[in-house]
């Protein structure tokens, strides 16, 4: 079957349901770069960084949110960057760290999950998806050693257990399941503290979305690399909700309305 334009493999060499293994065999140069080359210790140019992301578990699922700012050194590289993506119908991934490799990683992760689903005829378990992402981060290790660290959050609705789950990662691909919430990126500490003070078991979807927005606002207040709501240009954080019915991005108009209430509240001395 060597003459076929389709990818066929000998039984010992078959990549199975893994898209990454498939690419490695047929088009390895299409995989994300895993090394800057030349024994580089650090990049000679400013790398674009995505900043603060949060994931919060609530009664029926999880909320994920990210600010819109990307920075390169002290410059604002992008005001409209999106950092929260659907991984598949029932899970999402948010990115912080070196933006280039992070966006590549998300794209590969999305195809990896869909490819598995189509080849095997069923969805991976949520835990299986979380482990797949850990593998992609591990493959980025040489880049991480050169300063291009990618630290995503992964969250989703676990159909088998019937609740939302949040996973965080370190630069080495270490995977940690969070009990209730997590925030990472440059403003992550501020966001996390805010969530820690306000989170409660069994929160509603609305309260969790508001808490995510407040946490990002708090982070933007303290961290210059995190962007707050931009009322002049109408740029607001990206927020997604994942529950039994799947991944849904909260509409911009809804976020704008909530952000305005939030800012109104602040002017009256409540909240921040």
């Amino acid at each position, binding site marked *: *079957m060597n003459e*076929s*334009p*389709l990818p066929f493999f000998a039984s010992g060499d078959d990549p199975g349901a893994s*898209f990454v293994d498939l690419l490695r065999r047929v088009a390895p140069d*299409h995989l994300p770069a895993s090394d800057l080359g030349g024994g580089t210790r650090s990049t000679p140019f400013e790398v674009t960084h995505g900043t603060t992301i949060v994931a919060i578990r609530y009664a029926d699922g999880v909320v994920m949110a990210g600010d819109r700012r990307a920075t390169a050194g002290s410059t604002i590289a992008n005001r409209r960057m999106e950092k929260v993506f659907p991984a598949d119908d029932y899970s999402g991934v948010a990115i912080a760290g070196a933006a280039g490799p992070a966006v590549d990683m998300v794209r590969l992760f999305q195809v990896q999950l869909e490819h598995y689903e189509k080849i095997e005829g069923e969805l991976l378990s949520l835990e299986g998806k979380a482990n797949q992402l850990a593998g992609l981060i591990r493959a980025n290790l040489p880049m991480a050693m050169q300063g291009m660290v990618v630290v995503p959050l992964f969250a989703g609705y676990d159909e088998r257990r019937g609740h939302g789950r949040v996973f965080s990662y370190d630069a080495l691909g270490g995977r940690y399941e969070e009990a209730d919430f997590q925030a990472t990126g440059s403003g992550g500490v501020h966001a996390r503290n805010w969530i820690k003070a306000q989170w409660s078991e069994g929160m509603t979807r609305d309260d969790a979305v508001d808490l995510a927005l407040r946490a990002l606002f708090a982070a933007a207040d303290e961290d210059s690399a995190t962007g707050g709501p931009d009322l002049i240009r109408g740029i607001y954080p990206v927020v997604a909700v994942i529950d039994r019915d799947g991944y849904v991005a909260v509409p911009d108009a809804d976020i704008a309305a909530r952000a305005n209430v939030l800012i109104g509240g602040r002017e009256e001395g409540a909240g921040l």
Partner: protein
Amino acid sequence: MPFYVSPEQVMKDRADYARKGIARGRSLVAFSATDGIVVVAENPSRTLYKISEIYDRIAFAGVGKYNEFEMLRIAGVRQADIKGYSFAREDVNARALANAYAQTLGQVFTHEMKPYEVEILVAQVGATQEDDELFHILYDGTVVDEQGFTVLGGEAERIIEVTRDRYTADLDHGGAVRLGAAVLSTDDTPLPAASLEVAFLDRSRTRRAFGRIRGDELTAILEAS
């Protein structure tokens, strides 16, 4: 013992062999409907599918030897995912995939010990019904670009005969499912939900158009009129 066999005879023997294998299995029909493409197969199994998703707007279906069309299906998913990842999702199309299948089946038919005993369908739902594409690919690599509906399998001639009179382009997906259940049956009673596998490429979906119609939903469609 003959020392020479004419190429004509070799090809004819191979074609007969493939056709016999395909005729042993059950048939499958696909319709272009107003709201999408419907594929209906006679298949009592709930787990070994004949119809599957290849990509956002593309479905695959096969009749004949399961392991052979399953291998082709997986190769198609791989090809489509590689192309979509390397270029863009909108660059993946049914025509290129049908050509790749045709080349593969043609190669196997002339060069391998035995031909594949399969017929396959590559269907792509378009933005409008005029843009729907149904590529029917035979065991020897012949590609037919079908209009409106197509039938795969050993009973194709009989089924085409009865479908031709009853298919119209203004069927919706429910009507197409019922027509499929009726024409696949060898007597006058439509096949029941339990012996059907049905998939629908929904024209209105923005990304992945493929979905299976089964269980209560399928029963309800079959009982409606």
